[in-house]
């Protein structure tokens, strides 16, 4: 398991990765094949795969397996959920009222604002903050879906590429030892992608706006209500979270044993401070703001359940990948040559499954290739010094390609659901893929591949 002994990595059988494969297959296939079943029973499916990973490993490797699973839960899963949940909750305390005019320029400005906010308050926070005014502005337009689709591309994905708070995979990278500000190295790719997408959006929206007939007899762009922001002080708590994460990266205050697993004091301090920010937000924000934002814990509940199973089932798989060519998944690494391959491989996996496990899988693959048998912060540090282009490719690929499908990143389907509920005619899964993400994102990512990798 991630960080497990070298010997264990090399002898872990291939079947130990089967529950992870099964879990990912379910995440990818069941929502499409049986949406209602998945919606009602995803927790049971997740529990099934998690137990299938846990029981044989505990039976075969006993305490060593227990130690590694608990380590994954305490050091990766819990901090991940605390961060994601806190950002999500605090963002829900900021309410933007009013209805902006849905002109191409204003829509573009709103997409830019969402993109800029994504790296500060996370893609999920930025998406939840901006989606409702954007929906209100565009729901009367015939082609209102266009703004929402580019919003998914930008605010819900690409915008999150430059800090560990931006997108879940990058926070997992931070937990694995990637320095907080290192992700800023992806800024050129992110800025390029943002500029290109905004330009394409503006041109398409301008054309639509010019040709659009009103949906129901009114003007194409309705009268507006002035924009007002309530609960803006929650941004202070978001900055507090950023400070807590930064602080944890710069301190070294020893470790304490939590149910037999050593956890660093700085990690505990970070998680404690993040929870304090959450509590402060709950205390200072009137309930009515979250009501008006239609805040619900449900999406986070789904993420928490699925990721518990993903983290558990992923542990043996990451160990095998870390073993490099000697491990049973050495054939995967043999097929990956250079950062370009990593950019697309992690990207394809991110778009079909979820970008967080995809990021970890390919980070461990790269570590396995260059530093077989080693993992943890020291190996990540060596990768950054020796082969930074690989980590850039993995970071950019996992974040950018999350935009490819509705399931690539959690905010995607939230934006879709909120837009559809408001009456915007969003494309279906394949419509989104074939009409928008393939024609727009594939050429863009090809250009990024050749220019930057």
């Amino acid at each position, binding site marked *: 398991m991630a960080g497990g002994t070298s010997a264990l990595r090399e002898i872990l059988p291939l079947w130990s990765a089967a529950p992870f494969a099964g879990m990912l297959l379910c995440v990818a296939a069941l*929502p*499409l094949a049986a*949406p*209602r079943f*998945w*919606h009602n029973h995803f927790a049971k499916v997740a529990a099934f795969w998690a137990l299938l990973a846990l029981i044989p490993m505990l039976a075969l490797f006993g305490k060593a397996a227990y130690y590694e699973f608990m380590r994954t839960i305490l050091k990766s899963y819990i901090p991940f959920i605390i961060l994601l949940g806190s950002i999500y909750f605090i963002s829900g305390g900021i309410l933007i009222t009013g209805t902006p005019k849905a002109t191409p320029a204003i829509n573009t400005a709103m997409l830019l604002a969402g993109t800029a906010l994504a790296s500060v308050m996370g893609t999920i926070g930025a998406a939840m903050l901006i989606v409702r005014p954007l929906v209100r502005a565009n729901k009367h337009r015939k082609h209102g879906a266009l703004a929402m689709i580019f919003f998914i591309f930008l605010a819900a994905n690409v915008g999150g590429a430059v800090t560990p708070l931006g997108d879940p995979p990058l926070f997992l990278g931070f937990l694995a030892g990637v320095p907080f500000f290192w992700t800023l190295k992806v800024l050129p790719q992110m800025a390029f992608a943002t500029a290109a997408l905004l330009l394409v959006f503006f041109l398409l929206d301008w054309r639509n706006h010019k040709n659009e007939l009103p949906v129901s007899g009114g003007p194409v762009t309705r009268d507006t209500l002035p924009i007002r922001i309530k609960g803006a002080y929650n941004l202070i708590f978001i900055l507090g979270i950023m400070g807590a994460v930064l602080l944890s990266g710069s301190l070294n205050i020893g470790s304490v044993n939590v149910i037999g697993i050593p956890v660093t004091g700085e990690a505990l301090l970070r998680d404690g401070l993040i929870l304090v920010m959450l509590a402060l937000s709950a*205390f200072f924000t009137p*309930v009515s703001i979250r*009501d008006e934002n*239609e*805040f*619900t*814990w*449900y*999406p986070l509940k*789904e993420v928490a359940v699925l990721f518990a199973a993903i983290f558990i089932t992923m542990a043996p798989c990451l160990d095998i990948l870390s073993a490099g060519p000697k491990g049973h998944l050495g054939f995967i690494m043999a097929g990956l040559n250079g950062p370009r391959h990593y950019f697309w491989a992690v990207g394809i996996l991110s778009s079909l499954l979820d970008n967080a496990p995809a990021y970890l899988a390919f980070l461990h693959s790269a570590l396995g290739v260059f530093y077989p048998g080693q993992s943890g912060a020291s190996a990540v540090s060596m990768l950054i010094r020796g082969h930074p282009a690989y980590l850039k490719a993995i970071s950019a690929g996992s974040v950018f390609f999350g935009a490819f499908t*509705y*399931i690539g990143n959690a905010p995607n*389907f*939230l934006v*879709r*659901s*909120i*837009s*559809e*509920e408001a009456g915007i005619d*969003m494309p*279906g*899964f394949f419509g989104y893929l074939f009409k928008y993400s393939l024609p727009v994102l594939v050429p863009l990512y090809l250009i990024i591949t050749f220019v930057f990798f």
Partner: protein
Amino acid sequence: MPDSMKIKKLLFATRFHDMALNRLKSLFPLAAAGMEEIVLCHIIRREDVGFVPFGGYMKEEELRQRNEALIRFEDWQAAISAAGLRSKSVVEVGEAVPSIISVLHREEAQLMVIGRKKAGRMERALAGSDTMELLRRTPVATLVCGYHEDGQTEGQQEGWQLFNLPLLATDFSNASEKALSFLAGLKGAVKKTAVVHIISDPARYEELREETADKLEKYSSVLQQTGIQADYHLGAGESPWEAILEKAEEINATMIIAASTRKDRLHEFFLGSVSHRLAEHSSLPVLLVPD
């Protein structure tokens, strides 16, 4: 005592529990106390129709659930009409608590009736429940219908006489006076009641007995002046809500009425609240009157 409070409109929020119709019928005697209209309300939880990774927002599922609710409400409205009352149905998609509160404000109802799902200790500690959240936020009197520990429900059987013998639990606070005036406003529906006070320091029972009995006597006489026959009972117990439940069982009360002071979640977590404990643990319906 404040002027007695009249119920003209009642909001009946339901998730279509098996016994919900019986619960609704048990409220019809309120017509004799001046109630004119019942608003039936069902909230389709957003998470049941939205946030589906591949499905997005399931409009057809929403329509299915909406139609199902409206069809059920049609039957219920026929029963309400037969009882000589007006009715209206509201079906919305949203988060349960804010949506119900929003309907409550919009309809200007004076009484809300809700069910309480039996939650495990862990669930209560971690997430609370919609019922408790509603009780914290409601601005109007709220009747909560609870569950027996074995899963059986009381106050929901066919023919249950909800208003036969309400027990008014009082601590003589201003909030309790408001509960008293609310009960007085139920004359017509309520013929007989029992007023109960629990001395929370049993060691001082003898010392406080006489003074407390006088206060109870005053409460009873207020009710009797409005035409409601009232007995009073004095009890003692370190846990007032448990003592109230015991007393309710002892006198065969059909519901419990108590005042509810607005406490936030933190206050309630650390210090508890007698009224909310009653609502949480009672197998009898509990009517809480906010201060």
